C-alpha cells in the first residue's frame, strides 16, 4: 500500500488522527472519506476522530462478505427466485409506448442465454451538443438512422400494359429526408442510381418521376422488380425499421434533450453517424455492444439490461452485486458465454459436472476418446462421488495438534484456500 501523507492534504487532520485512522482495517477509499469528513466538520477532536474511525471500521468489517461464502449459488438463487414472480408477456417499454420490447422472464432468459440477435433489438441513441436540443438537427440524425424505403418517398404504380414501374417521388419528403440538398431533382437522380445499382437495370428520370421496366417483356420479372424495389434501403441503417424521437430530461445537466429510440439495432453503424453521442448511446443487443465497445462494456450492458428487466417487473430490490457476478462469469474469458449447455456449463473442466447437466451420454463418450481425467475439484462432481464439497464449511481444514507454538508456526505454511 502506498504511504501517502494525509496531513498535507487536509487542514484539520493531524498526525495523531492519521495514525489512528491508518491503523484501522479499512480500504483506502474509506480512509480518505474519513479524512474528508473530518475536514468538512472542522475541529474534530482526536477522541472523536478515533471514535469515528472505530465506528466506520466496525461497520466496514460487519458488511464484508465472509470468506468461503458460496456467493455464486446465493447470486444464482437471488436472480432465479424472483423469476417465479415475473410475467411471461411481452409488454411495452416503460418510457416509450410506441416500441414493443421483450420484457419479463423471456427477456431475462434471453439475456442469460446470450441469444443473438435478441428477440426485439433496439437502441437508445443520445445526441451530442446542438443535435440534442435542436429538433431539426435531431431529425437529421433520425433520417440517417431510420432506413428509408421507397414507400416512404413516393407512390409506385405498375403499368402492366407498358411493362414499366413508375415511381412518383414526393418533393417535400425528398427535401425533408435529404436536408443537405436543396434540389429535389438531384435527390431523385441519386435515388435512380441506387435503384439501378440494386436491381441492375436502366431507369429513366424526369424531374421526380422515375420509370423503369424489365429488359425483356416478362410479367414475372416486372412483379419481381417491384418486390425487390420495396426492399431497397435508400438512406439510413437497414436494420433499423423505425425511430421514435422523444424529449427527455438529462439527469446530468438537468436540461431537456432529444433522445432517439430505435426499433432494430445496428450499434456500430449508429455510433458512426454524426451527432450521435457515442459515450451514452446503447443497444440492447449485448453482442453488438461487445463488438463495438469491448468486453467490459458488454459486462456493463448485461448488468444494466438485467437490472432494467427486473425493474420493469418491480423486482429491483435484487442486489446489483448478484447481477454483477452473473455478468462477470458470462464475460470471464473475454467473450460472451451463455449460461447453459452451450456456454459455461458445457465448458466445465469436469466430465461428471457436464454429464450431470445435460446431454449426459455424449459427454461420457467424448471423455473416453480424449482420455480425460476428472480431478473432482468442483461441487457437482463431489456430490456425485459422495465427498464433501470444497466450498463454505467444506473448504475449512482443522488440524489437530498440541499447542507447541514453534511447531505450529513451522507447519503453518501459507496454503491457498482453493486447494
Amino acid at each position, binding site marked *: 500500500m502506498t504511504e501517502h501523507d494525509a496531513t498535507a492534504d487536509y487542514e484539520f487532520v493531524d498526525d495523531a488522527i492519521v495514525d489512528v485512522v491508518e491503523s484501522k482495517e479499512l480500504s483506502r477509499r474509506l480512509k480518505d472519506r474519513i479524512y474528508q469528513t473530518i475536514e468538512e*466538520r472542522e475541529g474534530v477532536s482526536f477522541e*472523536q476522530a478515533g471514535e469515528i474511525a*472505530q*465506528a466506520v471500521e466496525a461497520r*466496514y468489517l*460487519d*458488511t*464484508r*462478505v*465472509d*470468506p*468461503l*461464502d458460496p456467493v*455464486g*449459488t*446465493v447470486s*444464482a*438463487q*437471488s436472480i*432465479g*427466485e424472483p*423469476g*417465479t414472480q415475473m410475467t411471461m*408477456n411481452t409488454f411495452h417499454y416503460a418510457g416509450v409506448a410506441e416500441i414493443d420490447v421483450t420484457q419479463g*422472464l423471456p427477456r431475462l*432468459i434471453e439475456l*442469460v442465454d446470450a441469444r443473438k440477435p435478441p428477440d426485439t433489438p433496439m437502441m437508445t441513441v443520445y445526441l451530442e451538443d446542438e443535435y440534442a436540443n435542436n429538433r431539426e438537427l435531431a431529425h437529421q440524425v433520425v433520417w440517417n438512422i431510420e432506413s428509408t424505403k421507397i414507400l416512404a418517398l413516393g407512390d409506385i404504380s405498375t403499368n402492366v400494359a407498358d411493362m414499366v414501374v413508375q415511381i412518383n417521388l414526393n418533393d417535400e419528403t425528398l427535401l425533408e429526408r435529404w436536408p443537405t440538398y436543396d434540389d429535389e431533382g438531384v435527390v431523385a437522380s441519386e435515388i435512380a442510381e441506387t435503384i439501378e445499382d440494386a436491381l441492375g437495370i436502366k431507369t429513366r428520370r424526369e424531374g421526380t418521376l422515375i420509370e423503369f421496366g424489365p429488359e425483356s417483356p416478362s410479367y414475372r420479372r416486372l412483379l419481381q422488380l417491384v418486390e425487390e424495389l420495396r426492399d431497397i434501403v435508400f438512406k439510413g441503417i437497414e436494420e433499423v425499421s*423505425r425511430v421514435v424521437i422523444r424529449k427527455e430530461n438529462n439527469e446530468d445537466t438537468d436540461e431537456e434533450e432529444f433522445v432517439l429510440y430505435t426499433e432494430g439495432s445496428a450499434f456500430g453503424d449508429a455510433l458512426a453517424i454524426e451527432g450521435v453521442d457515442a459515450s451514452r448511446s446503447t443497444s440492447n443487443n449485448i453482442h453488438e455492444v461487445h463488438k463495438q465497445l469491448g468486453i467490459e462494456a458488454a459486462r456493463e450492458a448485461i448488468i444494466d439490461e438485467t437490472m432494467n428487466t427486473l425493474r420493469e417487473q418491480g423486482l429491483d*430490490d*435484487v*442486489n446489483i452485486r*448478484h447481477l*454483477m*457476478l*452473473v455478468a*462477470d462469469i458470462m464475460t*470471464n*474469458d473475454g467473450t460472451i458465454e451463455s449460461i*447453459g449447455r452451450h*456456454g*459455461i456449463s458445457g*465448458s466445465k*473442466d469436469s466430465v461428471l459436472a457436464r454429464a*450431470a*447437466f445435460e446431454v*449426459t*451420454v455424449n459427454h*461420457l463418450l467424448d471423455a*473416453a*476418446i*480424449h482420455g*480425460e*481425467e*476428472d480431478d473432482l475439484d*468442483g*461441487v457437482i462432481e463431489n456430490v456425485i*462421488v459422495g465427498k464433501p464439497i470444497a466450498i463454505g464449511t467444506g473448504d475449512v481444514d482443522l488440524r489437530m495438534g498440541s499447542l507447541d507454538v514453534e511447531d505450529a508456526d513451522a507447519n503453518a505454511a501459507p496454503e*491457498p484456500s*482453493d*486447494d
Partner: protein
Amino acid sequence: MSIQTPKEIGSIQFGLMDPETYRDMSATKVITADTYDDDGYPIDMGLMDPRLGVIDPGLQCRTCGQHSGSCNGHFGHIELAAPVIHVGFTKLIRRLLRSTCRECGRLSLTQEEADEYRDKLGRTKELGDDWSDVMKSAVRQARKAHRCPHCGSPQHDIKHEKPTTYYEVQNVLAGDYSERIAEAMQPDPDDEDDEGVDPVTLANETGLDAERVNQVLAGEFRPVGDDRKALEKALDLDLTEEDMNKLMPSDIRDWFEDIPDEDLITLGIDPDRSRPEWMILTVLPVPPVTARPSITLDNGQRSEDDLTHKLVDIIRINQRFMENREAGAPQLIIEDLWELLQYHVTTFIDNEISGTPPARHRSGRPLKTLSQRLKGKEGRFRGSLSGKRVNFSARTVISPDPTLSLNEVGVPDRVASEMTQTMNVTERNIDEARQYVRNGPESHPGANYVRRPDGRRLKVTEKNCEELAEKVELGWEVNRHLVDGDIVIFNRQPSLHRMSIMAHEVVVMPYKTFRLNTVVCPPYNADFDGDEMNMHALQNEEARAEARVLMRVQEQILSPRFGENIIGAIQDHISGTYLLTHDNPEFVETQALDLLRATRVDTLPEPAGENEDGQSYWTGQQIFSELLPDDLNMEFTSKVGDTVTIEDGQLTQGTIDEDAVGAFGGEIVDALAKDYSKTRSRIFINEIASLAMRAIMHFGLSIGIDDESIPDEATAQVDEAIDAAYDKIQELIEIYEAGELESLPGRSVDETLEMKIMQRLGKARDSAGEIAEDHFEEDNPAVVMSKSGARASMLNLTQMAGCVGQQAVRGERINRGYEGRTLSHYQKGDLSAEAHGFVENSYRAGLTPREFFFHAMGGREGLVDTAVRTSKSGYLQRRLINALSELEAQYDGSVRDTSGTIVQFEFGEDGTSPVKVSSDDETPIDVENIADRILTSEFSSAEEKERFLGEREPPTNLSEHAEPRVDARAGVESDD
C-alpha cells in the same frame, strides 16, 4: 471375508477398454441365453451365472464369496462372432475413416499441417477451450487430400448411412457409357440451330482417333482416365456412376489398427487410454447381475430386467451367426445376421437412435437400455448420483402454531420416536442413556437401537429394554428419540433460495402434523392449505454444530437477495399492530397485561394517565414500546403515510404497520437484525407476533359481505362514471368509423382506437374505485387490512365494491371468439366496451353471464401463464445455479471458482455482503452519518455508544430450550 478400507476418490479417468484387458477382468464368459434351470437355479455360463454376483438372499457369489447385499457384482463377457460398431462413436469413426489413409492408416496431413494442428490443440487445451473444433478442422483439412501424402495411394470418399453402415465411394465409369455418349451427340430437339455432334468432330475435339471413338460408341472400348475426361469435357456430361463398397466392421477395425499413435494425438485422441479400434467391439461386456436384478412376481414367475432381455437377444443371434458361419451359409445370410447382431448391440447401448426402430418389450414398451439409464432427470446422473435419498427424514403436512418460537418446529411424537440421534455413552450421560433405553422404543423419550463397542447393533424392544438398559456401559452408543431442543433441518420444496432449508429446534408434540410459527411462512413460501414439508435429523456433531450456527432460522432473518429481513410480521400480525397503535387506544391494567402475557414483559411502565373511572391506563404505543430495546432511535414513514418516531425505545408517534415490522423489509426488524443481534430480533419478532395476536383478539377483526358494500348513492355515482366512459367510447368509435381518428405515432388507427378505449375504461374503473374508497369507513376491516399492508390491495377492494373493470387477454381487450365478434350476443364489428370484456359490475353485485365468461377468459390466461412460468423459471434457475455453483469468496476477498480461476477481484466491486446491506442503500457505509452521530453525541447510554462503535453482544447459539431440556432430563422416568 475381506473387508475393504474406505478410500477417498482422488480422480476419475475416462477411456476405452482394450478387449484383452476386458477378457482378463471378466468373471466368466457367457454362452447360454437361458437364465434359470427348471429348479430355479441359475445356469452356469448363463446370464445369471452366480459368478456375476448374486441377488437372491442366501446364495453365495462364486467370484468373491460374499452374499447378496455385500457383493457388488462382477462383469462377464460375450465373445462376439464378428466385430460390431459401438453406436456412440459412429461420428468419430466416420471422421477417422475420412481423415486417414485406407492403405497405410496415416492421417492425410503433411507433417507441417499435422504439427500445426497439434500445436493448436495443445494451446486450446491450455486455454481450457473446446478442442473439438480444432479436431473437426483437422479432419476437414485431411479430407481434402485426394492422395495420401505419406504413401501416395488415392483416397476415396466415405459415405455414412446412419446409424452404423459405412461405404467407400468410388467414381467408376458408368455401365451405360456408350448410350450416354450417343444421346449427347444427338441434336437437341428444342433447338433448331443445334445439329448435334458427329463422330469426326468429336474425335477432333477430344484428340482421340476416329476409330477409337467408333469403338467407344459401339461399347467395345471403355474410355478411362484422360480419355473419359476428354469425352466428358467435349460433350459436357458425366460418364461416371458411384460405386459403393460397403466397409464391414472388421475392415474398419483392421484399418484403425494401422493408425499410428502420433496421428491420433494430432486429432486429440489419447492413444494410451483409447485406441480407435476399440470402438469396434469384439467382446461385449455383460453387466453384473446386481445391475439388472430380476424380480419375482406374486405368482412366482420371474420377470427379467430390460438389459437381460437385450443380452438374451444378443447371445441368440451371436450363436446363430456362429452356427451359420460354421455350416458355410451363403454370404447374404451371414451379412443379414451380422446386421441383426449389430442392431441388437446398438440397441443394447442406446435404444433411442433416430432411424432405428427401438427394441421393444413384449408389451410394446420400448426397452430401457444403457443410455436411457443414464440420461435425463430420472437417469443415473441427475436422479441417482446428484440427488441422493437419505435416511432420518420425515415428511408430513404443516400447520400453524403461534405459541412456538420462530426457531422451533413442532414434531409429531410418532415422528420423534422414529428418527433418532446417536448418543455416545460417557460417564456424564450414562444414567440418562440408560433411562432412554429403559423407556423402550414405544414410549416417547426412548431409544430404538444400541450399539456395543464391538460394533454389534441391538434393537431395543419392549421386551428387552429393561434388561438392555442395565447392560449399557461407557463406550456404547444409544440411538435415542428426538427430544425438545434437538436441532433438525426443515425444508419446503421448491427450494428456490437458501431460506428454503433452515434449521429448527425440535418441540415434540402430539398429533400428526409439523407445526410452525407463522412468521417463517415467507421464507419457505408456505401456507397451510395442505402444504407438506420435509424434516431431516442430523447424524453427527459437526453437522449439528453447523446447522445451529449457520442455518438456524434466526440466522436467516436477513435475505441475501435484497439485504433486508425476510422474516417478520405477516397478515393478522400487521392488522394487530395497526389496531394497537393507529389511534393509540387506551388499555386498563388487566387489558395491558393481557396483551403482553405471551412476552417477557411482566411489569408495566408508568401509566399514561387516568380515565374517567379513575383507572390508570396505558396506550397502545406504550405497550408496543415495551418490546423495543431501550436505546432504539428511529424515524421513518409508515405504509399508512404517517411518520413513525421512536425515541429511546419509546414509540412516540406513528402507526406500526407492514413497513415497520413486516416481512420483506420491515424497518424495525431490519434495524434490530443489523444493529443489535440476531437473537434480539428473533425475540422481537416472536413477541410482536404474540402481542399482535392478543391485540387482534382484543379488538376483534372479522370481515363479511357487508364490509364491501357501498351506499346506494355511491353505486349511482359509479354507474354514472361508467356511463360517462361509455359515452366517451361511443364518441371515439364514431370518430373512428368516420375515418377521422388520428393515429398515434407508430401505431395503426385500429391500435390507436384500442389503446384509447382501454385507457378510458381504465380511468372509469379507477374513478369507480375512488368513489367506492371514499365511501369506506376508516375502521372497515377490509380497509384496515389493505392500508396496513396485512393482506389485499385497495384494488381488490374496489373490484369487490365498485367495478371489476376490463378483462384482458394478452394485454388487450378480449377480441377472440367468433368472426368479428366475441360472442354471438353481439353484432359483428361491435367495438363497445361491453362486447369486449368490460365488467361493469362489482364482485359483490355479481357478474352477468357474459361478464362472467369474459372474466373466466382473463382468469384462464393467468393460470396458463403461471404454469408456463414455473417450468421456464425453474429451468433458468437450474442453469444459473449450475453455472455459478462453483464460485466462492476467498480470504483475500476475491471470487474464484473451485479450479482457482478468478472471476471477481472483489465481490460486487466493493466486497460488501449482500446480506448485510440493503439493495437500495447508495453507499454501504455512510461516513457522514456516522460522523454526525458521534459529533452530536446523541447516545442515551454508554451501551448504545459502545454498540455503535462496534461492541456487540457475542452471538449465542444456545438452544431456546436449554432450560426446559435440563428439566426434561431430570424428569425422564419410565412410564411403566
